[in-house]
């Protein structure tokens, strides 16, 4: 539900002038700026930063949060939110782990099983939201606790060790210099970007977020679209969970704790409105990268844990404020 504030009216006008594509660049301009600034700064102050090795390192680190953030973008564009993805990840992780634990050959099966589990859980959130008009926050909060419980019961609170090499490749392997998760992330971005910009479904996602009733009255099955959005998000959360399990070579019932917050943060930093209807995948990608680069950079500069938090907070705030300015 989008509320034009006196300033936003002015902001909007920026877009009106530009073509959709370039306007979304203007939108991100401030952020891209921040990202570049951060990169330049870091490459000046830490010679470890701008090495192929470290760049791949950062990309590997962001790819899981990236996949989550892309899914979350869809949900937030419909003016929804999904708190459950962290727990959904855990469920997917332990299910996949248990499969390859028993039968190391079944990597594909494990991945699919994990994703389906995610999709199922999220379809419940989606249905509660779309059909029973439960606030997404609550619906997904409920699923968040339930899913966590499921993961703990399924494993009886014990991590499941993974040894299957083919499965471990997903999170730890590389194709050439590029880590596999990064490739997955890139593919997901491409697919979802196309989904949003080129398909009816994408249009409906934006329309629902912008004005749900107008969309209904235009004859669109809003409930269906919403539920699909949550399912897609669940799939991606499941995928992320599987990758995480592979990355840490164990399916942990309490993995993914708090991941939802990072994902949402990336999306919102990327300029997507929590009131729905406005936002892009490119924005989200920039958001994800900013967070990733900050985390990596602060470690490379060896900033102490305490001060890392302060610096992180300030940079995020600064980034968004600068972004706002650039939209004026």
């Amino acid at each position: 539900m989008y509320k034009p504030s006196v300033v936003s009216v002015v902001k909007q006008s920026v877009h009106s002038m530009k073509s959709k594509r370039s306007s979304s660049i203007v939108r991100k301009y401030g952020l891209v700026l921040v990202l570049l600034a951060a990169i330049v700064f870091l490459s000046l102050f830490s010679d470890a930063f701008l090495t192929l090795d470290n760049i791949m390192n950062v990309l590997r680190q962001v790819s899981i949060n990236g996949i989550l953030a892309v899914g979350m973008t869809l949900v937030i564009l419909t003016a929804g939110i999904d708190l459950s993805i962290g727990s959904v990840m855990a469920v997917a992780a332990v299910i996949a782990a248990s499969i390859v634990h028993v039968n190391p050959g079944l990597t594909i099966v494990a991945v699919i099983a994990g994703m389906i589990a995610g999709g199922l859980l999220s379809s419940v959130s989606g249905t509660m939201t779309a059909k029973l008009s439960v606030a997404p926050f609550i619906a997904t909060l409920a699923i968040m606790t339930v899913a966590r419980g499921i993961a703990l019961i399924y494993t009886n609170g014990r991590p499941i060790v993974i040894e299957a090499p083919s499965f471990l490749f997903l999170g730890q392997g590389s194709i050439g210099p590029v880590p596999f998760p990064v490739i997955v992330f890139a593919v997901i971005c491409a697919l979802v970007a196309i989904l949003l910009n080129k398909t009816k479904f994408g249009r409906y996602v934006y329309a629902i977020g912008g004005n749900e009733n107008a969309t209904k009255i235009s004859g669109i099955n809003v409930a269906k679209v919403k539920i699909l959005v949550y399912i897609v998000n669940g799939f991606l959360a499941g995928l992320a969970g599987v990758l995480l399990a592979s990355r840490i070579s164990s399916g942990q019932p309490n993995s993914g704790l708090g991941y939802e917050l990072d994902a949402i943060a990336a999306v919102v930093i990327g300029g997507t409105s929590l009131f729905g209807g406005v936002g892009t995948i490119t924005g989200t990608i920039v958001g994800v990268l900013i967070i990733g680069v900050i985390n990596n950079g602060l470690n490379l500069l060896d900033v102490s844990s305490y001060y890392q938090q302060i610096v992180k907070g300030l940079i995020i705030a600064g980034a968004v404020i600068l972004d706002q300015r650039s939209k004026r």
Partner: protein
Amino acid sequence: MADSVLEMRHISKAFHGVHALKGVHFEVRRGEVHALMGENGAGKSTLMRILTGLVQPDEGDIVFYGRPLPIDSPQTALRHGIAMIHQELNPIPEMTIAENIFLGREPEYGKTGFVNKPLLFRQTAELLDEFRLKLDPRTKVKQLSVAQKQMLEIVKAVSYNARLLIMDEPTSALSEEEVQTLFHTIEKLKQRGVPIVYISHRLEEIFKIADRVTVLRDGEYISTTRIEALSKDELITMMVGRPLSNIFPKEAAKIGKPILEVENLSRSNVFSDIQFNVRSGEILGIAGLMGAGRSEVMRAIFGIDRFDAGEIRVDGIPAHIRKPADAIRLGIALVTEDRKELGLVLCRSVKENMTLASLNALSNGLFINRLSEIAACSKMTGDITVKMSGLDQTVQSLSGGNQQKVVLAKWLMRKPKVLILDEPTRGIDVGAKAEIYRLMSDLARDGMAIIMISSELPEIMGMSDRILVMGEGRIKGEFMRGQVTQEEILECAIGGAGIV
């Protein structure tokens, strides 16, 4: 001028390259009703929004009661005694009528900051009586019809006892009855010497109450004239830039078999046994007073609201309409009266809004065909000129009238069998109206059945083949084209009983 109250000089405003105002002059005198006229997108609202601090001008200065006036926010504007009825209705749906009217100046107990609710409701009740509105101050605004919301805005603005009152299309959703009430109030204010800026696209009104007229065209100042010195056609020529031959280009169309038939449709305490049909090639006008329930009937037919009893037939086949999608599938389209709530996705582009209801036709199952989408939009903007910087401009940055055009375009694009228009020309300028009337007439000629709800009687009289009159949720009467006068329609609508 001695009795000059307000002077705006060389006002310019560009929204990122697009000039909404170019060095505009505007002068208002004590106790006059000053009409501000111009096509959609001419810059009227923007000029007034500058005066109320919602928009900051790029250049120009403002003199108010002899003193230069720096206005940076609505607060300062109100503090200087400038009140405005905004074109875009802006109520707070979840709050009561009383809270909405007195927002920001609630009566307190002393200076404690505690709201004196009894007094609040009493004062509101008095105001509502003054405007002959039978409404409970405790009703939540979200329960009101568009017309009622608009009356509310009027009541609120007037109650500020401002030194300058701006009315930006106050009557766009009102019917005769309320318009009369408004004019009485305006008269009273004039006597008190309160100057009023009056923006409207209903020319008759201008000639009824305006003293002077200032015309803008494409953001430029054209002229300021005393109303007596103007004829309707002259005024139109000034606004549009060219003379406008025939405003109501209704051609006789071949009227075929009934397409939409409604049999004693009822919904408890909203409307009861509504019965009518509309034939292919026919334009059916529906007149009525505010609260007559016209919108409600159409909402029910379109599947937005449920109804208790009755039958709807399309092409003679009983239709089961539970949600808008069903109605649309049957070839019905509804242009709702409330463009902000139900018509538009404000934060999205003109293109996305226009094609939202037609994407199935414009896509191969999944992917949208960009070219045919743009083609479809261009065709619509060819029929109805929308003043915009491009198909990608966000709808919320369009002028009010142009927003309305986008809603129309969205539904016309579907080429429905039955087109229902609820206040289709709300806030649309004469030129554009003429365009739309021509379009309606063409569509009718091509066999479309059109239902037009309107509170603007000239429009009803000018365009309809047949006229239904509704009141208190019932059909009060039916007239054929040219066999009835405005007075008769009003008679019928009021039907002795009071207005809801």
